[in-house]
């Protein structure tokens, strides 16, 4: 199994809603990532978990809250989002997340989020 599975594929939410994005992998990877991608732009790193610990938070607003319940699962909790948060949210995983390696990332297909 070399897949990263993200649910839901599409999500429409109001600015007062609370929702969660889910990501799952069964490759035994110990690093998982959340990226945000606006249309026709490169993915931007939001969060990195390595061995279930948040190792990097790229100064993302607190209305985004990550959670890593175990090494196979990654959630992104959303609350009080703004219309400018509308984007494709990508989850990825890699074997260890260690620096100075040519370890590749495996990406999910993403959740297309629209905030009204």
């Amino acid at each position, binding site marked *: 199994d070399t897949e990263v599975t993200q649910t839901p594929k599409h999500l429409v939410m109001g600015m007062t809603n609370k929702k969660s994005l889910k990501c799952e992998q069964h490759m035994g990877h110990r690093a998982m990532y959340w990226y945000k991608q606006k249309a026709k732009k490169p*993915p931007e790193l939001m969060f990195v978990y390595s061995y279930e610990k948040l190792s990097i938070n790229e100064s993302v607003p607190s209305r985004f809250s990550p959670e890593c319940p175990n090494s196979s699962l990654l959630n992104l909790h959303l609350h009080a989002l703004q219309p400018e948060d509308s984007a494709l949210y*990508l989850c990825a995983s890699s074997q260890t997340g260690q620096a100075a390696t040519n370890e590749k990332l495996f990406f999910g297909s993403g959740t297309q989020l629209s905030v009204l």
Partner: protein
Amino acid sequence: AQSVAQPEDQVNVAEGNPLTVKCTYSVSGNPYLFWYVQYPNRGLQFLLKYITGDNLVKGSYGFEAEFNKSQTSFHLKKPSALVSDSALYFCAVRDMLGDMRFGAGTRLTVKP
């Protein structure tokens, strides 16, 4: 800081012709360079990565990349383009913290 640059927003080629998508890098130490492809409304798919010592790296779907240390480039190439190669291509570098940093992307259009 580790970074990559993709100087072309758009590359157009005719089917059957060779294609090149350009990438230059700025790294300290060993370069950990990658190419990814993205089809509409999908995640990124890994194409290939630089392996120390190999100036020509072969990857998925017939793509290859040429590493040139003197020009600090890692251009993506394919000898004969297919219409199905039309997509968004990202060059990326893994930085000293282990994070993958992407270039701005190049949209490749292959016309029949």
